[in-house]
């Protein structure tokens, strides 16, 4: 049978397909027997949750789009019609709107996991950078989605954010006119945002695929941050982690349902139920909660271009993290100083988030300046220096030695002779 893949599947239909297109073999290899560190904690659920969330967004989005009208005179009313008249329209919209918030909650926790356990360090640098790209795409998608209902916050959020680009010298004004397709946020802007809001999630699917492909080359990191030394350190993905992920998925759906059914507008802004009015700016323009820390960084700088650059830099610095953190030890469990500093960084981000939601005056300006300075200090100064001076704790010999009561039996030769293995 020259030219056919040798399939191991017994079912004749699956075997027939698999011999010609080995997708079943691939699934079995990547999600069935895939060797996965045996010591995952629940932080390792969030990648799977993010994938499910993306699927939910695409599914609800496609059905919303069947009833949505991307025209400045009709968009607001079409969303109200979805809410009142379309069968289950309220559910579709509330799942989609709260799904965006859930998506950011999940992805921010997923990123914290990476920061805490050093998952960005070699050999997973590219995997991490793909993650940063995913975050940027998500932000663009969510921003454009929020414009679609064409309420006051949609309109003024779009105005403020697109105007960020006018900060660039010489070309700035042209870029903004080009983004708008006119001289203000208007119907052409709404149309193109709808087009891109439909497109970008599918680009996300592509980048997520690359993210997973890269993950399956390096294998997963784990809470100890040490490399897998052999089969005694791993478990097959199925059934062990399919089950563990299912537990997380149940909890995730409970939280999601609490928002959708009991507080569907809690994370939104009442002003967005007022139709867009280009002549009146709401007294407080506040972006969605997931953008607040970045908004605070933007406003902390008294110079327009400076604020815009610093805001983009706050994300850019994440992409450079694999090279900024000079410590060879991955997991914060073995880094007594880093372990505290990472919590300080989380507090800094929360402070920035709170400041971003307050009017830019008085104490809030001072606080957001301090927090912004510390954010950059952490990445650009503390991490490079800390790696050189921190006294890390001794690393366990292997995952199985550390987590199994029996110590997981003898190690294959060589590995056991490296008690202070540096990642």
């Amino acid at each position: 049978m020259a030219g056919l893949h040798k399939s191991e599947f017994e079912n004749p239909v699956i075997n027939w397909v698999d011999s010609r297109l080995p997708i079943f073999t691939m699934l079995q290899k990547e999600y069935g027997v895939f060797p996965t560190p045996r010591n995952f904690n629940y932080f390792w659920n969030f990648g799977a949750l993010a994938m499910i969330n993306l699927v939910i967004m695409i599914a609800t989005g496609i059905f919303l789009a069947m009833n949505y009208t991307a025209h400045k005179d009709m968009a607001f009313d079409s969303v109200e019609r979805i809410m009142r008249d379309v069968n289950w329209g309220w559910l579709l919209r509330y799942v989609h709107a709260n799904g965006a918030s859930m998506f950011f909650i999940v992805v921010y926790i997923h990123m914290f996991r990476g920061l805490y356990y050093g998952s960005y360090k070699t050999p997973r640098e590219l995997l991490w950078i793909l993650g940063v790209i995913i975050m940027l795409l998500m932000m663009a998608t969510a921003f454009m989605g929020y414009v679609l209902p064409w309420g006051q916050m949609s309109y003024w959020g779009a105005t403020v954010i697109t105007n960020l680009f006018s900060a660039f010298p010489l070309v700035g004004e042209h870029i903004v006119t080009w983004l708008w397709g006119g001289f203000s946020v208007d119907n052409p802007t709404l149309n193109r945002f709808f087009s891109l809001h439909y497109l970008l999630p599918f680009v996300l699917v592509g980048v997520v695929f690359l993210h997973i492909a890269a993950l399956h080359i390096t294998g997963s990191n784990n809470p100890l941050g040490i490399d897998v030394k052999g089969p005694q350190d791993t478990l097959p993905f199925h059934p062990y982690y399919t089950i563990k992920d299912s537990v997380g998925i149940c909890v995730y759906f409970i939280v999601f349902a609490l928002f959708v059914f009991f507080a569907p507008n809690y994370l939104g802004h009442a002003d967005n139920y007022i139709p867009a009015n280009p002549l009146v700016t709401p007294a407080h323009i506040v972006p969605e909660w997931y953008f607040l820390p970045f908004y605070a960084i933007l406003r902390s700088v008294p110079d327009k271009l400076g604020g815009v650059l610093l805001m983009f830099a706050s994300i850019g610095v994440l992409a450079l993290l694999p090279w900024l953190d000079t410590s060879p030890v991955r997991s914060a469990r073995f880094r007594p100083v880093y372990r505290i500093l990472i919590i300080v960084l989380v507090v800094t981000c929360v402070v920035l988030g709170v400041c971003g939601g307050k009017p830019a005056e008085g104490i809030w300006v001072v606080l957001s300046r301090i927090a912004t300075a510390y954010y950059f200090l952490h990445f650009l100064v503390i991490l490079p220096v800390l790696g050189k001076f921190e006294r890390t704790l001794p690393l366990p010999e292997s995952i199985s030695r550390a987590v199994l009561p029996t110590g997981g039996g003898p190690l294959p030769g060589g590995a056991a002779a490296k008690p202070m293995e540096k990642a």
Partner: protein
Amino acid sequence: MADSAAAPQAAPHAGGAEVTKRDFLKLVTAAGAAVGVGAIVWPLVDSMNPSADVLALSSTTVDLAPVTAGQAITVMWRGKPVFVRHRTPEEIAKAKVDDKGRLPDPALDAARVKPGKEQWLIVVGICTHLGCVPLGNRSTEVRGEYGGWFCPCHGSHYDTSGRIRQGPAPANLAVPPYAFEGDTKIKIG
């Protein structure tokens, strides 16, 4: 192709790289492809710029007669609010004094109005920071420290000539192109 390039001198990166005819052909092909891609991409990119119908809507006529001294109105031009303010003599005098004040974006008041029509200040009502509509067109609204307009979004203060005085905005409120068509009528755009 790999076989035919296997001649000894065809290892371009091994030290004394000789320029071969093949290198030249590759370069010309790549350049041709780049021009082709550019020619295809440009129409796509430019299609996002303002279209002819959007550009065509770009002038507005305003009757000034009903606007008394101290009052201001807002008119739409190219989808943006334009402030038309009938300044009082005190406001004009203040703007003139402020010519010598601290101005982040220096401009004389005289250069921002039409000669002999100093009472009419016409500016685009869009904050030059991030595009909010500043308050102050109605006399009941806050007008900021300098008596002109105040932008609530991030706290920019404009004076009675629409010049930025304080806050994050980098530039004065823009003066749109306009001309008087008679004593009490202007055409913006």
